């Protein structure tokens, strides 16, 4: 049976949220929920869900402010996530150092807590002058097809 999908976005300018809405819209064969990472706690992870994360990069390769509370709570509570599957899509701008590093902080932490990443690591480069929506939607469809 395919898992329900929970999309978590971590955003600073709204681009990740904007893309998350479009990603949710193309998942039609199962239940989808979309949460701002700042409204999601590390105790909310459930093994019956597939987690799709989309997260931007702020400042010098830092997490966007919207992702900080979840990151900090996972780091201090260290929940066992060994039965959690997730896929992740990072936003960044290759004209800066630390391109797309924001999401990598979350990815590393999830992995260290035992969660398993599925599919390819998605990326979007703002230097293209486009928003991530289109590439994130295509990537989401691939993830969903594989899961």
């Amino acid at each position, binding site marked *: 049976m395919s898992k329900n999908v929970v999309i978590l976005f971590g955003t600073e300018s709204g681009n990740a949220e*904007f893309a998350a809405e479009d990603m949710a819209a193309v998942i039609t064969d199962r239940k989808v929920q979309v949460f701002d990472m700042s409204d999601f706690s590390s105790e909310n992870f459930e093994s019956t869900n597939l987690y799709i994360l989309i997260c931007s990069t702020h400042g010098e390769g830092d997490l966007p402010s919207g992702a900080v509370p979840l990151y900090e709570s996972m780091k201090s509570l260290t929940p066992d996530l060994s039965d959690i599957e997730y896929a992740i899509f990072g936003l960044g*701008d290759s004209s800066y150092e630390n391109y797309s590093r924001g999401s990598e902080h979350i990815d590393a932490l999830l992995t260290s807590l035992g969660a398993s990443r599925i599919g390819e690591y998605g990326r979007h480069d703002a230097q293209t002058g486009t928003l991530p929506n289109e590439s994130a939607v295509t990537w989401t469809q691939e993830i969903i097809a594989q899961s």
Partner: protein
Amino acid sequence: MRLARASILSRFWGNLGVITLSSPSIAIVGSGPSGCYIAQYLRKAFPDSRISIFERDPVPYGLLRFGVAPDHIGTKAIAQQFERLFKRDGVEFIGNMEIGKDKSLRELRSEFDIVVIATGLNEDRSLGISGEYLEGIYSAGRITRLLNSHPNENSEGILVGSNIAIIGQGNVAIDLLRLSLLDSEELRSFGVTRKIADLMGKQDSKTISVIGRSPIEKAKFDITMIKEISKFSNVKFTSDIDYTKIIDEDSKQRSEAINFLVTHSPTNAKRIVNFYFGWSTLSFFGSNRVAGVDLVSKQKKMRISVDTVYTAIGFQEAKSASIKKSEHTSGKFDLDRGFLDDGLYCVGWFRRGPVGTIPVSRADAKHVSDAICSDYYSKMQGKVEIR
């Protein structure tokens, strides 16, 4: 369609105002980042409301379109989020309409249940020193409007020489520095018109002095903005930072970013950028056109010869602003929530002053949108109880 539905339903509900209460009509004045972000939040809160954005320019997005540097295409792309407001989410854009001039705020408030002022602060702060009005001295706002093809800005009288002073060290000043190092073709590739690209893009030889009043530890630029400058390999960078006096972590990072530029630049180059920290600008001198600038740091004085000056020391409310904050902060206002009067709110730079980047404006819009919703629902509660 909406009117027809409202009038049919109002026969059942009488004059209780249930229809207007469940979907207040909303006018937003100003379509910059703050105006558009609050439109997003209010649209989510009130899916059926009539939401209209009034803008004095013919086109939307304010400083995102005319203030953000043209080469920051990642930031510019945020406009694509806002486009959806108008294309899909039923938010109405009314351009060429300056509230307080073409239509009074009073009239607008009589037409809409809720009015949100998001007009920003769009006049360059002036230095208030002698020589400020000499030829060759241009405000950052004017230059970024020209670079972004503002329809009501003109390049009359602008002549960019090869010895430039930039007054200020905030992100706008660093934008002007970076843009001053792009050649005409590069500027054109970011959509700058040929005329402006040719004015600013001469790169044969150039000296740019970036002058800040604050010492390095208090310099206003974001470090990423300085790191971005390191892409120019054929520029010689210098600075007057006294590295022996750098102690705390933050000033260390700031000075290291500058030091990286200095140590990685060639000893000889036709283009030179000098960073001066802790120098107040005393005055400009010259007969018609600016010939130099006098600076002071503690008791020391310094004179730099220049032929062009960009001032980038922040923004303020224009004297000619058609909506003035002081006119709305006398009654029962509560600026912390963006509340000015019943049904009248403000957001963004108008509310909190000219500081903060686009993400800060988004958080601000969320904050004021929450206040609007909470006021609205407590008001609605009152009405329901009366019924």
